[in-house]
């Protein structure tokens, strides 16, 4: 132990909402902890209270129903990869999940945490964006539903306000069966953050691109038409992103690779 904080693990969603309402900005929400704990260790965050969202009844629920696939905040990346529903109905969700970090990290990391963290290089965001997923956001005063297309507000920022938590992720039933592939450029073959990542899904002639590591937030591009030629498609995707130069790569290379990936995906995803 190198830093002391109070740890709370509410047993019901209502209790969790009340606790979060009480502590507001003083606390941090703990899901898998794969970002929070290193950030505490490195002194980036110094929360007085850490609230675990994995312990309430139903937090680890993952079920496919008439509405679609719903996932509580304790559902881990490996839960997704092990789920028959996810594998059979949402292959692109699994394609993204498989590219996230290493097996060990995937045992801890949650889908909810990956998107609430709102890193530009989130691997799960492209899938949730392309599949039209919705965030069910809860607080002491009620519940609101936000499509992931409107969920990300900036670098490491979401529409969540203090007191709120991401209670359920719903991937609509109508997205089931979408074909898709995720291409992620990394520095090593082992676990790494993406230099760029592009997911393309195709369903009933409709194309969607989810792009990570290329803008302040993960980006959804749904303007590409089925009849667009590859260069036109690449142009449209590039128009929606704004890559930067950093230690992982230059803007120039990122743009080039997004174009390469879009063209490749168009020919590969049937």
């Amino acid at each position, binding site marked *: *132990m*190198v*830093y*002391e904080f109070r740890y709370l693990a509410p047993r019901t969603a209502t209790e969790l909402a009340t606790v979060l309402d009480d502590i507001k900005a003083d606390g941090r929400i703990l899901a898998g902890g794969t970002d929070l704990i290193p950030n505490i260790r*490195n002194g980036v965050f110094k929360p007085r209270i850490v609230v675990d969202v994995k312990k309430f009844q139903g937090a680890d629920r993952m079920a496919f129903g008439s509405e679609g696939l719903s996932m509580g905040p304790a559902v881990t990346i490996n839960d997704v990869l092990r789920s028959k529903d996810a594998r059979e109905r949402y292959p692109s969700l699994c394609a993204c999940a498989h590219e996230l970090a*290493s097996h060990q990290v995937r045992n801890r990391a949650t889908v909810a945490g990956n998107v609430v963290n709102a890193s530009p290089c989130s691997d799960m965001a492209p899938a949730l964006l392309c599949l039209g997923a919705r965030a069910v956001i809860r607080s002491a005063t009620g519940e609101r539903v936000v499509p992931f297309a409107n969920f990300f507000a900036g670098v490491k920022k979401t529409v969540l306000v203090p007191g709120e938590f991401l209670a359920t992720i719903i991937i609509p039933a109508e997205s089931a069966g979408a074909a898709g592939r995720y291409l992620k*450029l990394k*520095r*090593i*073959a*082992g*676990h*790494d*953050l993406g*230099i760029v990542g592009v997911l393309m899904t195709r369903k009933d002639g409709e194309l969607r691109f989810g792009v990570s590591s290329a803008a302040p937030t993960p980006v959804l591009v749904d303007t590409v038409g089925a009849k667009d030629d590859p260069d036109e498609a690449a142009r449209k995707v590039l128009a929606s992103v704004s890559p930067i130069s950093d*230690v*992982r*790569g*230059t803007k*120039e*290379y990122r743009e*080039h*690779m997004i174009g*390469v990936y879009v063209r490749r995906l168009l020919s590969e995803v049937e």
Partner: protein
Amino acid sequence: MFDDIKTADMTYVGKKAGRPDMVEKLTGEAVFVSDMELPGMLHAQLKKSPHARARIKRIDASKAAAMPGVRAVVTGEELDYHIGLYIVDKFILAKGEVRHYGEAVAAVAAETLEQARAAVEAIEVEYEPLPPVLHHMDALKPDAPLVHPELGTYSYIEAVFTPKPGTNIANHTKLRKGDVDKGFEASEYIVEREYSCPSVQHVPMETHVAIVQWARGDRVSIWTSAQSPFTVRNLFCHAFGLPHINVRVQIPYVGGGFGGKAGIGIEPLCAVLSRKAGGKPVKFQASREEEFSLLPCRSALTYRIKTGVSADGRIQAQHMTMYWDSGAYADYAVNVTRASGFSASGPYEIPNAWVDAYTIYTNKPYGTAYRGFGHVEFHWAVERHMELIAQAIGMDPLEFRLRNALRPGSKTMTGETILPSTGNVVKCIEEAARMIGYGSLSADELRRQEKTGWKIGKGVAALQKAPAMPSFTATAVVLKMNEDGSVLVNLALTDYGQGTYASIRQIVAERLGFPIEKVKVAFENDTDRDPYDWQTVASKGLLLSGNAAILAAEDMLRNAYAVAAEALRANPRDLGHDGDRVFVKHHPASSVAFSAMAVGLAMPNGNGIGGPIIGVGRYIAQGLSNLDKNTGEGSPAIDWTYGAHGMIVEVNEATGEYRVLKVASVYDVGRAINPDIVRGQAIGGMIQGLGTAVCEGYIYDQQGRLLNPSFTDNKIPTAKDLPMEIECAVVETPQIDGPYGARGVGEHSMISVAPALGNAIQKATGAEIMHMPMRFEDVWRALTKKEPIDNWITKSPIGSCRSAPEARNRG
């Protein structure tokens, strides 16, 4: 120490033999300093500089000192000790001025780690930031700020090094052979290029850690994760002016070093905290981030080579200028510069050579030894250069290498004559080429290329290295016989993972003629108990300590024979022995057991003879000399280990992505004492080399802050990054003075991996890459003829990796 015995005729040498530390390490039973706790032990934490260069105006540690659990606070102001091996240029804590990002300015010891952390945060430091000098080429400018204005006052090993006070040059190594002007005049082609590589981190699994107790009467006990117990003790005693008898250094199992734990490290810091805390033991373990910026790294290099070649492809002259970036302290970097200077051409004959090798101070984390000791970095340049020369003159690169490779009768740059026993680099190159099917693509490879659209290319690169060590480097091995006739081996050469103890055990068992189960090499090293060894570095361990082990075994047998001769009333010349007893050769029934003699033999009447049986072996490097400071001539090398890699790579020309399909590595190890350990070293070092070739490297911003001080953005290879096929082989040209003909290979496997990859990429696609690492983007930039990126010093005016290709036909 070479005896011409075929491996087939030996019992242990050259055969399969398990590692003595295998079970402890695989089960987690092995105890490392990281695991250790002592009664009353305090935990240390450090306050580190956020600036690359700044004047320390004020440090207020009063709040920290008053915090709960805090037992000692130390700042640089109150300490006046310089630390160093080759050039004594470093304080324990920054004093007056910080010289690099991450440098420690104050330290706290407290009862718990949390208390120490809290106290460090409460220390207030007021800095006046000063303009740093970041790129080593910038540091040579006449108006560059001086990193060490007091350079002229530092002590250093004067016979070997040449600092230039009033500049940022910590050392200038020179070598002059023949007449380069004439050589260039006689050349048909001249090719001049510049190559570079960034600083990288060793990344040992166990970060630096030490526990030090400064007890009453200035008796100091040190437990440390280090490579060299005696050098830690010696440098520690020099720094503090203590008698050697007062200081004891113990090294248990070590979780890797790779050169980063050579010399002395964090021990003095723990010591001053312990002293101030009234003698309580103090432990400091570096975090991974501290490993990157507080502790030393590998120096960056810019290497400019100009080569004159005759019409038939023979090198006539070579002008070589190495600019080594030592960072803020140059203690070890000066010796990297020296060792690289005399080896700067690689394994090729250069009739007329001119080398200037500079060690340059900058305001960055400092360099130290790293597996290969400069040879990984400069072979990157040399072996890319050989490829580019071959291309420029229209010759196959393999043929060009073989035409210029050292052979018996060749003279090295220091004037040493290559003998048939020196080792066979030609055979290594030929074998590596054969193992990858150099020169053409197989039907399978052509089909694969067709299917993937990725271009397949094959390249080779050769390598050489001799141990970089003082000319009089020495070691000793002591064997002690136990009551049951088994044998304990004590030595202070440290096995921090490389496996030398397995080989030493085989050598001792072989020479004694004992079953190997009766031989134990004691793992923990202790300066109070073990005989001297200089350092566990330089790939010299097996050669020197192996020879000492042979001598110790012979001494043990001599001592046992003396007792047996007396007991059996026989002439020692008429005695023989097996694993259990000494017997009279012509009356084998007349014998005495080793177990009976082990601690002194009791005669039937009760009289005692002999005494505990021990064997002592001492060995010192023979025939080496200091190099002439003006010409570089002399004998620096106890042995040269040669080798070569062949590499097959497939490259996506549209993206710069590539995959290594095969690596074939060949080394002339003289004799593989333990073939599995040679293979382990060959594969481990190759992958470490591949990591630095593919993705590793320090990235700074323009203020000199390290932007990637962790595994988030300083990636190292994982199991998934292994080449699809790895093949290793040895050539065995016996080293006449090596144990059973063996020479070292610990570092060599990392050397020339990067240029083999670069050469294969060039063969596949034509991409000419002159700087490491070769990230996919770098390959893409080279393919699309875009300006190389240089984020090693982001946007530094001279910080470009740009090279100046210049191949002109003088005819």
